[in-house]
């Protein structure tokens, strides 16, 4: 299993071990992954879909799963203590597979992208800011960066600035 767990300075070692224990208890034989808003225990599809490696880091209020593809694309999924993915961030040469990482939020994102494009001609970052979904995408081909999160799902004490 290609995971590593690093305890951050702010995390008590007890908390770190409890999180690791929770992951093991759920019986993963290889790293788990999920779409935005999804349950981390429900799918391990993202890593398989992207044929990527996985690194897991436990932080003060969430677990961070980072997958990296051979071509250098990185997707980070931020999972709250109750196992929900509240944020996704990416960077790399390609755009990430949006249906895969946004899950049930994919259609809302797509509608928002059409609306922004229709509002004014030109090429500029994507900036969807709705109460139930934020999607920001910028950069240029071979150097993209972006994130998506559900504002109401951010754990207490976590700001959107940590999703990057």
């Amino acid at each position, binding site marked *: 299993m290609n995971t590593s767990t690093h305890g951050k300075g702010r995390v008590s070692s007890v908390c770190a071990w409890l999180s690791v224990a929770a992951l093991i208890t759920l019986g993963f034989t290889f790293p788990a992954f999920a779409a935005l808003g999804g349950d981390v225990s429900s799918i391990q599809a993202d890593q398989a879909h992207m044929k990527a490696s996985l690194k897991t880091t436990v932080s003060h209020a969430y677990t961070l799963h980072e997958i990296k593809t051979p071509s250098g694309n990185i997707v980070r999924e931020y999972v709250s203590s109750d196992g929900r993915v509240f944020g996704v961030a990416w*960077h790399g*040469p390609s755009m990430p*597979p*949006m249906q895969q990482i946004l899950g049930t939020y994919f259609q809302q994102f797509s509608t928002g992208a059409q609306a922004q494009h229709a509002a004014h001609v030109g090429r500029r970052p994507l900036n969807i800011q709705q109460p139930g979904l934020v999607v920001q*995408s910028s950069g240029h081909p071979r150097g993209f960066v972006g994130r998506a999160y559900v504002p109401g799902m951010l754990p207490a004490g976590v700001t959107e*600035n940590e999703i990057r």
Partner: protein
Amino acid sequence: MSKFLTVVVVGTLAFLVGCGGGSGTPKGVPTGGNGTNVQPIAVDGGPVPNQIYPDGAFTSVTLCNPGTTTCQTIDGILVDTGSVGLRVLSSAITLTGLQPLTSGSNTLYNCINFADTSFLWGTVSVADVQMAGEVASGATIQVVPDPATLGFTIPIDCSNGGVDESSQVNLGANGILGIGAEPEDCGPACDPNFDNGVPPNPSPYFLCSSTTCTPTSVLSFASGQSQQVLNPVVLFSTDNNGTIVQLPALPGQAATETGSLIFGIGTQANNQVPSSAKIFALDPSIGDTFTTTYKGQVLTGSFIDSGSNGLFFPDATIPACVDIPDFFCPASILSLSALNTETTSVTGATSTVNFSIDNADNLFAGGGGADAAYSTLGGPNTGGPFDFGLPFFYGRSVFTAIDGAAVPSNTPTAPWVAY
């Protein structure tokens, strides 16, 4: 599985021939040719009737059936230093002799996604491309058809939920001239030698039958016979190591602005790098970006991009426009400053960039709503890097040196950007 593709016309890869065995850094810039290397560009609102495309620099490109003098000049092509490859809408092409690359009964298709999640899907076709006195013979370009003519649905790996820009009104142009810092749009990651021939996921290249598309690897420029969509500049016989985009200074806004796209760096009297220029080496592994420090924020992944039609950067203190929240609408014009440095230091260049941001609603309404050029147009890039779009180019000559190209000996290994 064999990935051999038939190339209809083999182009002259003079650039690679001049570089020898391929090991080490090519130095020694070829002498310039005797044709003109200056292509006019215009910030003129673009080719779409009744639509002003703000801060887009447009030019014309001449396409010819390969090896013939049967040609067509197409205007309204967006000059884009942030992407790579010449991409032309099929609806703008009257030539009938451009053939796509094929493998058996399958056709090679290419997808490009942009940061706003819009995309272009089209065939990899071969054309002779002429601009000014330069010719790219047998160049692979993307020809973008009306999706209704395809006979299959564009793969979701390409469409990815974004806007299909295959029409002139959606694209705002007849095509895009991608002249970024790389010779081709994907690079080594798409080559059959990479990752045991497994294409990247999502893949930019597909082989499609009449009904089905399958991701595929394609030979990269390093192999000597690229099947990727190329930066046409690298196929010029001279003046092929980069470009300069110049626009005159613009204190506020104007109906139009005209400037120049100059081919070659250090190859002719008109494309020398001035000693005062700041040169920023770019790292392909981080998307050819640099670092911008703005209001205490250290923004890695920053870049200069003529294809972005504004200055886009994170600043929560500047209000966004209520009607178009992708642009800034401060109460009055703001004088701001940013500091650029390399992300990995090579030249050690540092550059303070002073710029202004004005109220976009007022800008668009100014000039009777008919202006195309704005030096103070910007918008939020929350959580993102600093995107120095077209306003950065007013009053500057911006050099882009192409990865792998021979550059002047007093400049670093390409890729790099300088101004």
